[in-house]
């Protein structure tokens, strides 16, 4: 029996292990983000020639190459040298000093590839045991191994605090004085680079994919003298370049205004007016230029160290992304898969993004790294009749528990009477439990702050105060938690504008009203309540304060703010549902018990199975936007054609299962389009040229 059990177990595990080997993604576990380009799938859907012709297609492809900064020549995808039968990868790794963006590209034709990334006879090369480093334009770095079957491209973004650490700055020959001034370092000896932190831990992980055989080579010790010499040479070259640049800057001549007389009205007489001399803004701070040059040369040394460490890591040790808890591999039809790992984000990033609530610029560097197993994955999938953006997020146990409580509610079936699948342009609905939401919010805030290691005590205190102040049960009765927002139609609305009429004799102006027309959408919003009384009290208070009026059982908002609002708002409470709409007729019909229509079976299924859902029919907007006097006819034709070519858009997010929550966005492609990949490519091209 035991033998049979083990045999069965092996039978199950061997294919799983084999699959894991194929799905290995060469990126570290703490990468900030990872992107997999499924080139075999992309090129099964389209050709290099067609990608070349597509603006978005060629741009996306060029992003693989750091070529977006190169405007010198058109890029030919068929001559990229890339092996389109293997996948390509990109990931970002950051330290407290520098951020590396690493591209791992499968190479088929090394000569074409070199030419594609701008390597020529003038490119600086550094031969090492396992391959050659190339110093590319814009301070990027390429490494091509001796095998020539793949390449590593590295771009970096030095965080501005890279040399805030005075000890590190001194070691690298940078003398930093706080404020805006940089002092020239003339006597400080250039120290060797920091050793790359080679990992010595043993990880029991799957092998790296065959696509990227990372060679298991012996560690190459970077000789300290060599590094010192390299840094000194780089400084000298950079300073020379800076001097040349400064010479050019000193002789800048502001170009004449190149005004095309054929395209625009030209006031020829205006040239008779004497021009005001213009003084160009130029940098003349040599110290600053010198600092930048030194910094760049140091960053280049760090990048080489990083790649050396990377290639020395070996086949098994670099593909650690799969170690993420409950990791999911990309699907077969996924053209691109994006992973975002919360381990890669920390309070320092938040500081950069949001200014982080007054944390001192110098203190935030000391903040701890968050440690949790949350990650998110977004896949761009293509099917015969649809384009699907599928997102999956793994939550912590606490977040999963809280989310399950919050979304433990079904969508109110009574809403179906007020949604019309046939005529409504768009619908957004959700079903959550407000009481649970209010109860879980403090718990989630504590959890998040704990993970960030920020203001743990303060967050905990505030969360507890919130719990005391808010009556979750009572609030949860007033706003039950489910609701729908319906975009019912688009109709023409009239309004008065002010134009100036100029007296011919004096050019004094008088104001003249003119009627304008605009196409604007109408909305109907509804939400459930178990306490109509308190909402009626609120509305009656508004009546008392003359913010609302009531007529025939319908409340309507008065325009008291002195500010023009193109919308009118009407409100009614019926059968435990609060309705707010912008069309009086709709609300009157609800009051009179008239149903708005019916919901289709597929829409009902979407409502039943999800906590948040919605759909949008772009086709129903065709011809709805009037042509203004300024718009050209061609633009309106383009807009209508674009709307007409779009299928139904749907989105939905379900409940948390096994600590994972999924959200999907689907664009149904028209029946006459067999290839959804090319459909999306051309659609984006068209949108760019509307």
């Amino acid at each position, binding site marked *: 029996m035991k033998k049979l059990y083990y045999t069965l177990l092996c039978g199950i595990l061997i294919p799983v292990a084999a699959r894991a080997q194929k799905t290995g993604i060469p990126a570290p576990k703490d990468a900030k983000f990872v992107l997999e380009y499924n080139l075999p799938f992309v090129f099964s859907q389209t050709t290099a020639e067609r990608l070349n012709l597509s603006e978005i297609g060629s741009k996306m492809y060029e992003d693989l190459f750091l070529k977006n900064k190169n405007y010198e020549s058109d890029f030919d995808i068929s001559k990229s040298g890339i092996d389109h039968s293997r996948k390509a990868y990109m990931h970002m790794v950051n330290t407290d000093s520098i951020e590396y963006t690493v591209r791992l590209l499968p190479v088929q034709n090394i000569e074409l590839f070199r030419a594609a990334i701008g390597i020529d006879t003038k490119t600086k090369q550094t031969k090492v045991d396992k391959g050659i480093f190339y110093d590319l334009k814009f301070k990027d770095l390429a490494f091509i191994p001796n095998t020539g079957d793949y390449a590593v491209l590295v771009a970096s973004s030095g965080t501005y605090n890279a040399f805030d650490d005075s000890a590190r700055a001194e070691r690298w020959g940078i003398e930093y004085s706080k404020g805006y001034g940089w002092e020239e370092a003339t006597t400080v000896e250039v120290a060797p680079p920091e050793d790359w932190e080679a990992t010595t831990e043993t990880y029991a992980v799957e092998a790296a994919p065959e696509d990227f055989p990372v060679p298991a080579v012996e560690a190459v010790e970077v000789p300290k003298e060599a590094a010192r010499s390299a840094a000194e040479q780089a400084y000298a070259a950079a300073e020379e370049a800076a001097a040349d640049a400064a010479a050019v800057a000193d002789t800048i001549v502001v170009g004449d205004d190149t005004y095309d007389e054929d395209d625009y009205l030209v006031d020829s*007489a205006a040239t008779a007016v004497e021009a005001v001399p213009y003084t160009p803004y130029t940098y003349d701070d040599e110290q600053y230029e010198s600092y930048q040059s030194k910094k760049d040369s140091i960053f280049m040394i760090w990048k080489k160290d990083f790649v050396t460490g990377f290639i020395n890591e070996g086949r098994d040790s670099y593909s650690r992304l799969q170690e993420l808890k409950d990791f999911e591999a990309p699907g077969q039809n996924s053209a691109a898969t994006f992973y975002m790992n919360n381990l890669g984000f920390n309070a320092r990033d938040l500081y950069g993004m949001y200014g982080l609530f007054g944390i001192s610029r110098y203190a935030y560097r000391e903040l701890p790294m968050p440690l949790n197993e949350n990650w998110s994955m977004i896949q761009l999938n293509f099917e015969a009749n649809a384009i699907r953006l599928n997102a999956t997020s793994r939550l912590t146990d606490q977040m999963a528990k809280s989310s399950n409580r919050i979304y433990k509610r079904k969508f109110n079936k009574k809403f179906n009477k007020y949604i019309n699948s046939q005529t409504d342009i768009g619908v957004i609905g959700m079903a959550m439990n407000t009481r649970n939401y209010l109860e879980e919010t403090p718990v989630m805030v504590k959890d998040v702050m704990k993970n960030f290691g920020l203001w743990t005590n303060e967050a905990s205190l505030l969360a507890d105060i919130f719990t005391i102040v808010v009556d979750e049960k009572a609030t949860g009765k007033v706003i039950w938690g489910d609701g729908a927002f319906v975009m019912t139609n688009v109709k023409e609305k009239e309004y008065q504008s*002010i134009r100036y009429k100029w007296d011919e004799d004096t*050019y004094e102006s008088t104001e003249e009203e003119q009627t304008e027309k*605009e196409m604007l959408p109408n909305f109907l919003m509804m939400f459930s309540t178990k306490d109509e009384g308190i909402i009626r009290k609120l509305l009656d208070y508004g009546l008392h304060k003359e913010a609302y009026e009531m007529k025939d059982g319908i409340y309507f908002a008065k325009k008291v703010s002195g500010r023009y609002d193109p919308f009118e708002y009407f409100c009614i409470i019926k059968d435990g549902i609060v309705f707010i709409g912008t069309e009086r007729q709709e609300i009157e019909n609800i009051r009179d018990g008239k149903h708005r229509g019916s919901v289709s079976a597929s829409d009902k299924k979407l409502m039943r199975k999800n906590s948040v859902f919605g759909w949008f029919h772009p086709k129903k907007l065709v011809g709805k936007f009037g042509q203004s006097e300024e718009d050209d006819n061609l633009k309106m034709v383009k807009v209508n054609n674009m709307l007409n070519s779009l299928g139904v858009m749907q989105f939905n997010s379900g409940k948390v299962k096994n600590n994972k929550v999924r959200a999907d966005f689907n664009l149904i492609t028209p029946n006459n389009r067999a290839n959804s990949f090319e459909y999306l490519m051309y659609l984006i091209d068209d949108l760019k040229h509307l």
Partner: protein
Amino acid sequence: MKIKNILTSILLLISLVTLSSCFETVEEINLNNDGSGRMTLTFNGSQSKAKLASVMKLSSVNGHRVPTVAEIKHELAQTAAKLRAIPGISNVKTNADFQNYILSVSFDFKEVSQINAAFGKMLTAYKIPTYNAATYTYNKNTKTFIKTYQLNPATKKQYNELKQEDKEVFKSAQYTSVYRFQSLVKSMANTKASVSASKKAVMHKTPILNIINSGASVNNSIQLQ
């Protein structure tokens, strides 16, 4: 909160399809013979007020933050305070009409050169490079009024780098300048401008795109009798 986000998203979608708004800026100077006078700057967005009112419900559009009514009023008050602090500038008035989306600033000046100081101070306050300002001169002896605006390559570059949907905002925008004098106009350099029947005022209307493409298009040198 959720509903606001939903409304925001839908309005944003609509605005992206239709956001080719139309607005007009009017610059008026009433100049006395002694070089003193009054300047009025007006932004009239009433032709697009339905769109502007919709956009004002959003927190951002096309990636740009949308200011609130309170913030706009606060900025206008700040502008007025800055103008009042300039020697020679007086009787500063601002108006914000959100029924029609018309904003205006007006002030008296003792010397035309104070207009340049006012523009310089305002642009600096709003962190806009001062090279974007036009300059005005008036020579009392020769009775010559000159407006000069030299387009800086950086300004044009900034416009060219805008996203297409942002450029749409300027597509139909108009600029009107009106200069009224106590003396008769003898001659002027800008042939696109017109002189009133009384010969005491000069008007020039041009699309704002013309200024972005050629700042010189609004230049003028007006000789008074």
